């Protein structure tokens, strides 16, 4: 430390705490870790109840429901232990998802340290927690890397408030693929932002970016557009470095991400499962239609199916079994993802109407339909945990529930980042363009979440299907708020820029002084 350095207090990001230097990123990561450990690993354990979807992923990974009364816990209670198949598993190819990687890994650890017969889902939660906390650390590193200590700490606290919310982390104690989506989205966002910041090694960040995009895209069929959107908007990444190897590698990565998106999309048409297909029509096309009979005729379906308008698979009693031969032959065979997409394109009024329906659930992180406690905790059926859910509750209560607001939010955010993007384009500074590209990509990924949900399954299960949007909303809003905080919301004092730092300040040897100065100008309050 240099004693006569007059700017060291504003630029130094580390707090010295009993000899340990605590950066905002470390503080945020520790905060999220602490909250998550208390929620998921101390009694009463918080998790998510099965909504009937778990079987698809667990059977194919060699697990089964070993509780005799498991059926009675659907929706109501979180179950933490499952049986491990001891014989040949014939369900091995039931569902292809990158989520299996994490289940398999936790299964290996479970077998090594706990049991060969019983799987405790907390091993999976442990892996997810470590990855998630790492993601939060990288994100805060990227966001606060040129902030003053105080503001960095404010951003860190905000990050704990948003990303430590148990609405997010409760998914770790479940077999919903939202856990993978959440972590990988965080990694994509953080690594892209770190590429923009030039904070770490570009090759390492590119690798993290590509791997997390691939895992995110292939984690569930609904994420097919994610790979495509990211690969297109990541094209300017090719120009951030001059060396050929980087450019080739980036171009190849973009190709790979696009292929993964297309492959996942092709997989959709094969496995567009009956339940979603049923809902896409009954809770989608027919739901908002002025005349369901006409709509059915336009698909070449018997108009009598109008009677199924609004029907859901989750009703315990129905006129017809979703797997019934009559539906296979005369109903499902007449429509698919593309024909429903075409339908919405040609019926914008109906699309607007269903988008508004979708917007009503677009801010829900943790669906209220699934309970969070084990039965042994003695809570009532479907009881929801309220531990550290301030952000999710606030968001759900305060966010306006119209699609118009989503568009407005997008317009405002785009407007905020546009000047810096325009400046970067003018200077042909590809690295400086990245933040705007990242924000745009995240918003489009979020929108794709909404569109795929309504096309793929109407408004059924929408709160869970729109997870991708709600997380994208949080990431972009968090970044914008951080930018606002870094500029000083309540003070007119101009922050000293990195360029003004004394070169002798050895505490900041890696922070570039010019690369990111331009884009910051775009954020105005």
């Amino acid at each position, binding site marked *: 430390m240099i004693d006569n350095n007059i700017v060291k207090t504003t630029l130094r990001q580390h707090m010295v705490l009993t000899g340990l230097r605590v950066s905002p990123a470390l503080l945020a990561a520790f905060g999220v870790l602490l909250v998550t450990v208390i929620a998921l690993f101390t009694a009463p354990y918080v998790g998510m109840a099965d909504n009937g979807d778990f079987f698809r992923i667990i059977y194919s990974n060699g697990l089964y429901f070993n509780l005799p009364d498991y059926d009675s816990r659907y929706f109501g209670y979180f179950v933490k232990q499952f049986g491990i198949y001891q014989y040949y598993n014939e369900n091995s190819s039931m569902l292809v998802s990158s989520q299996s990687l994490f289940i398999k890994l936790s299964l290996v650890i479970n077998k090594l340290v706990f049991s060969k017969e019983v799987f405790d889902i907390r091993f999976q939660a442990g892996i997810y927690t470590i990855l998630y906390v790492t993601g939060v650390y990288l994100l805060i590193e990227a966001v606060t890397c040129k902030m003053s200590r105080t503001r960095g700490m404010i951003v860190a606290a905000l990050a704990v408030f948003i990303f430590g919310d148990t609405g997010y982390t409760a998914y770790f104690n479940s077999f919903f693929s939202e856990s993978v989506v959440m972590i990988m989205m965080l990694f994509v966002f953080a690594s892209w932002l770190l590429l923009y910041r030039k904070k770490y090694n570009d090759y390492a960040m590119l690798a993290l970016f590509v791997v997390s995009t691939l895992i995110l895209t292939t984690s569930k069929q609904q994420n097919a557009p994610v790979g495509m959107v990211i690969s297109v908007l990541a094209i300017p990444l090719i120009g951030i470095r001059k060396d050929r190897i980087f450019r080739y590698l980036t171009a190849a990565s973009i190709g790979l991400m696009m292929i993964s998106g297309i492959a996942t999309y092709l997989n959709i048409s094969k496995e567009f499962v009956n339940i979603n297909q049923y809902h896409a029509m009954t809770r989608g096309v027919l739901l908002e239609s002025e005349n369901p009979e006409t709509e059915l005729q336009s698909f070449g379906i018997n108009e009598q199916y109008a009677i199924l308008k609004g029907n859901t698979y989750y009703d315990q009693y*129905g006129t017809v079994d979703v797997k019934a031969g009559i539906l296979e032959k005369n109903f499902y065979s007449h429509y698919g993802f593309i024909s429903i997409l075409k339908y919405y394109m040609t019926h914008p009024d109906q699309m607007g109407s269903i988008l508004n329906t979708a917007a009503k659930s677009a801010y829900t992180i943790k669906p209220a339909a699934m309970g969070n406690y084990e039965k042994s905790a003695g809570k009532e059926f479907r009881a929801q945990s309220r531990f550290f859910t301030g952000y999710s509750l606030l968001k759900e209560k305060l966010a306006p529930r119209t699609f118009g607001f989503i568009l407005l939010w997008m317009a405002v955010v785009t407007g905020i980042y546009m000047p810096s993007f325009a400046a970067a384009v003018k200077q042909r500074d590809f690295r400086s363009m990245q933040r705007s590209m990242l924000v745009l990509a995240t918003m489009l990924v979020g929108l794709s979440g909404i569109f795929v949900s309504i096309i793929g399954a109407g408004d059924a299960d929408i709160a869970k299907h729109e997870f991708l949007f709600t997380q994208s909303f949080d990431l972009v809003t968090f970044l914008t708020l951080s930018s606002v905080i870094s500029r000083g919301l309540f003070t007119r004092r101009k922050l000293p820029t990195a360029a003004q730092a004394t070169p002798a300040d050895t505490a900041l040897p890696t922070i570039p002084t010019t690369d990111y100065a331009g884009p910051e100008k775009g954020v105005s309050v």
Partner: protein
Amino acid sequence: MKLKGMVSLLLLMTLLLLPAPAHSAAAPQRVLLLYDSLAKGTALAGNVAELQRLLAAYSTKVTLSSLDKYEKGVLNSYSKVITVINRSDLSITNEAYLKDIADYPGQLMYVGYNTPGPMKQALRLTAAVWPGGSAKLSIGGFSGIDLKVEEMPYIAASQAVRTYGRLSFQESSLEAPYAVSSGQYTYAPYLRQGDSSVMAMAYVLKDWLPSSAVPHTYLVLREIYPFSDLDLLEKVADRLYQEGIPFIASVQPVFGNTDFPAMERYLEALKIVQSRNGTILVNAPAVRPPINSNDYTLHDKMNAFLNVLIKNGLAPLGAGAESYWSYDKEYAERGLGFFDSAVLYPDEEVRYMDQTNVSKTFASSLYSLTTESLQGLSHTSHAMPQLPVNTAITAELPEDEAGINKLLQTLEQQWITFADYKQGAHKTVTEENTVVSADGVVSVNGVPLNVDYVPEAVSSDYQYKEEQIRSFTKLFSVQNKFFIVVIIAALLLFGGLMTIGYRLYRKKYLKS
């Protein structure tokens, strides 16, 4: 053609003259059904369920229990006990059962392997196991029915008083009775789901559960949905009516959107069915996978649907359901509690909500057989012999004209005398209505029902979406116009100022 018409007329007249099955108000017979194993994954899988269905068709109240769970003294509450032994390699080890059975005074029936000592002595029985091959079964009016058997227990020798049917093994000259009985003991060694041994068992049970009622056979059309081809349903009804075949339509219930034109068309089609001597039975709803088993509104839903039917001049006279529905408290009480008559189909996908081991009984209950399974029942007489139990011959609604022809051809080939369900005594009671049938007369709330169909056009004009209530529309419209004028004026003013400003600017700085 004339001859055919006369035959049909004669058949119809005979049916009309048939006496209605007497429904005694007496409590149903109670039977304890014990089994050592459900034989899942073996050739015998499902034989206990088949026995349950047969017993239901004889209107008995069955208590189902595994031998392992048998507790001392339980036997004494029943006058009839059936024990099914599906495991050839294990003998009964439950001491409480063995002790109770030794002193049991009631009727005992054994099915399967390992006949117990007292029964062997009483029937002077020697049982053996046939390793496998084909056999011919003859019983009642049926003869030479093919059976493919493996590890089949059979009666090698017995001096029982009564024998049932005859089995002849193809690969040898061996012949054996299908079942024997003497005093309190009855032994039927073989029962397998899906083959004709079930029919043979029906004959044995008819004797074991004495019933004076004359059994009838009915034709049931299944899989009738609101979105089935309703024109085709009408054609089937017409053709069956022309052929003089009374039938039952087991219709799928609808729990929502009952005011839609689609529902009205469904009801219109069912009215045509009813006018063509068809009887309406309400099928159990489809039960979705057990992901949401806390819906206790089945009673209200069924009640509402039944009332919609009745309000539209339709008379539901019973229920159709998979057999396991009668072993579920929720389904039996809240779903089937409206009916005293039912057709119980084989279980396809069992999804209990509140399982019980005691069955719900129906005053009139039909055992169901598909038209395909009839093909295997060979008989010497031209016409199909009367089946020993009230039976529903089930067929799915044909998919096209060719399907209708095929169905009628099958029925004609079998020469089955179908009875009219309305001739029997059936009662359906909802919260608002009571539907009763007896001797061919159907009445709703005491008033005879006129089944004549008067066609009614169903209008497709229906307002599916309620118009949103709008307040202050006039005010907002005026406000809109006002703001449009203000905005246009402001734009014009702004444009004007811009032009003036630009001109001033040009004048001042761009003089050249």
